[in-house]
């Protein structure tokens, strides 16, 4: 079955991103297709490479990036939410006149259309949030 996942909260503050990760991991293990994980609202904060969580804690961003690399997952950060929260790739850096980018490996920034498209193309859309 083809799943799409929506993540509405950032890492650590709420359990939403953790549960979403465990769900996606289990879905892939069970042989399902996860066609996209869309990060909206504070969810875009999962996609910064600048976090350094404590050694004895899970590394939420790295866990997503690793899963994406292993399973060719499409991790999409909503561009409007990124602009409000300071998640920037090279294009956004240039477009908004910023002096640094912070996007993590395996994530890409795109529009809300990607969420609607996921809703249309996937058999099930599952939302994780606060």
């Amino acid at each position, binding site marked *: 079955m083809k799943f799409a996942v929506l993540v509405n909260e950032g890492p650590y503050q709420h359990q*939403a991103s953790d*549960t979403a990760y465990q*769900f996606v991991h*289990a*879905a892939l293990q069970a042989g399902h297709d996860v066609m996209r994980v869309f990060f909206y609202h504070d969810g875009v904060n999962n996609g910064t490479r600048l976090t350094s969580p404590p050694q004895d804690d899970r590394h939420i961003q790295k866990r997503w990036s690793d899963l994406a690399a292993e399973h060719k997952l499409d991790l999409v950060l909503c561009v409007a939410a990124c602009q409000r929260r300071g998640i920037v790739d090279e294009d956004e850096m240039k477009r908004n006149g910023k002096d640094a980018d912070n996007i993590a490996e395996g994530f890409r920034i795109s529009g809300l259309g990607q969420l609607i498209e996921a809703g249309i193309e996937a058999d099930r859309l*599952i939302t*994780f*949030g606060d």
Partner: protein
Amino acid sequence: MSTLNIVNKSPFEKRTLEQCLKRVGDGDSVLLIEDASICAVAGTAYQDQLNATAELTKLYVLQPDLDARGFTDAKLLEPVQCVDYTGFVELVAQHDRVHSWL
């Protein structure tokens, strides 16, 4: 045409559970995850409400969230079934749609 309803907040903190329960019915399922998992435990103030709901609606709880909160060996409400993340995925596949009550 069944819906998997997901509730993730404690009914002691937010009204999400009661707001969900008054709008579900025959054939629907409710999955308790994260901070909502604790109300699957017997003896809380929400036990009667959940037992009554179970007459029409299936109730599930995410076991890893119960474990995290110290209720691995606790007595659960009779109608509640435990699932792990794999079971969660199966529930999503078995229902026609998912409604996350955020």
